[in-house]
């Protein structure tokens, strides 16, 4: 459809100013929608945000009992190691599961003229990122108790978070778009993510995987990603730049493919949901 906009030439200063204004507008839209979801989620609860922390902490507690006391999997600094795994995986999992139903749960927005639908997958990934960041103080306490020390290498963490953000957004675009047409995809992704919880080194170390499975096991992009978090946080080492770079390239590719497919399918959202 030809939506003509009041722009005379594409390289005028006016055009670039328009683009910047659009980006600010998009940022504000994202912020409002994320804040709306946060307010709705904790509205009228006594514990509020604590509910989001209870889940990973409870699981780490249970895992501690199971895999450190009942069966010893021999993970060193078990609590730090598992909590990082839990928090990072929760961000990834919740973002994708939410993205698969986000068009349907925002039906009235999708059907509203001028609404930028492509912001919705960003809302699910950003909202869950905020939950991760809010849990960082607790993680910091546990890391300090288990002997981690503050060092300059922690400054690499924002880069790792950005790479994971782009990677997840790419998948969120794909999941959000396809699950509007085929609702099964939402359920399928949910099941796959539950299975991958166990196929990802969350409470055990990669070295425990027998060598004949190592090659295929390491194809899971979350393996290098979790390393990139644990190296600086637990061992005081920088992340492996090579694997982070290749992960970043995959992430960019996913975002481009995902966004294109999303835009293509999003014209049909209004009639499909």
């Amino acid at each position, binding site marked *: 459809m030809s939506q003509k906009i009041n722009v005379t030439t594409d390289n005028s200063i006016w055009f670039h100013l328009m683009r910047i204004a659009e980006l600010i*507008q998009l940022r504000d839209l994202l912020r409002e929608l994320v804040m*709306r979801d946060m*307010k709705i989620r904790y509205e009228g609860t006594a514990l509020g945000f604590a509910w989001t922390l209870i889940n990973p902490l409870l699981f780490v507690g249970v895992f501690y009992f199971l895999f450190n006391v009942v069966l010893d999997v021999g993970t060193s600094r078990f609590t730090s190691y598992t909590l990082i795994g839990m928090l990072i995986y929760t961000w990834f999992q919740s973002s994708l599961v939410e993205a698969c139903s986000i068009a349907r749960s925002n039906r009235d*927005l*999708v059907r*509203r003229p001028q609404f930028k639908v492509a912001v919705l997958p960003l809302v699910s990934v950003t909202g869950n990122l905020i939950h991760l960041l809010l849990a960082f103080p607790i993680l910091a306490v546990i890391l300090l108790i288990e002997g981690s020390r503050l060092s300059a290498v922690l400054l690499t963490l924002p880069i790792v978070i950005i790479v994971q953000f782009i990677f997840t957004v790419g998948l969120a675009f794909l999941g959000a778009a396809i699950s509007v047409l085929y609702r099964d995809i939402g359920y399928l992704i949910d099941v796959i993510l539950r299975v991958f919880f166990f196929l990802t080194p969350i409470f055990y170390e990669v070295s425990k995987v027998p060598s004949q499975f190592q090659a295929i096991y390491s194809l899971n992009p979350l393996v290098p990603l979790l390393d990139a978090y644990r190296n600086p946080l637990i061992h005081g080492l920088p992340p492996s730049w090579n694997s982070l770079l290749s992960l970043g390239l995959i992430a960019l590719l996913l975002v481009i493919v995902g966004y294109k497919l999303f835009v293509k399918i999003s*014209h049909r959202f209004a009639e499909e949901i």
Partner: protein
Amino acid sequence: MPGKIIVQNLGKKFRWYHPDRPTKLKQVFVRGIKKLRPMGEFWAVRQLSLEVTPGHMVGLIGHNGAGKSTLLRLIGGVGKPDEGNISTHGRIGALLDLGAGSHPDLTGRDNLFLSGVIAGLTRREVASRFDSIVAYAELGEFIDNPLRTYSSGMQMRLAFSVVAHTDPDILLIDEVLSVGDAAFQEKCIQSIKKYKANGSAILLISHDMTQIRELCDEVYWLKDGHTVTHGEPEQVCAQYLESTTSEAKASN
């Protein structure tokens, strides 16, 4: 800024499915793969052309299901036409569903920011217009109460006030004016007239023929997705009313 809408030979087709269409894989096996395919399709809008020039207001009348709202959504960029072209110039303000994106548990203030930003303003712009929006909507201290405590008239006032403060060059209004009380309706109509005088292009869906006659420069009567006739409001409204009464008599 002057707004403009040009619609040429627009066609939008919807598929309709079997009422038992499986939406889950399990149901495909139970109900059969045949029911997955569309049973047929219908054109919600077909061969429709219209033009709204700056400073003009066009009314759309017709029975439910005539394609009026579909047309407004397509102009607003929701969905893709199967045929024809739409071109719009200027910022679009739309009053289709009241309270899209709003949430009953959030306060009027939260919802005001939300709908302002959804309508295309930045947060800063909403903040600077906040007082004026609340004053226009006549909400006063109610603005900090949850939206669920609002009457439908209050919700409509808030929604209209936000859209009126986005400086739309194109205004799409679907049958919402009738929600407000007489005094607020009059206020809305004054605002609409002001936008019109400033060069906005306005499309209004209404079943209220007095409103259509008073406000519009031209009226399109739609039926089954195409234009029955269009022209002077007086004439078209009279023809439309005549046909509705004869249809009603015939069905009796």
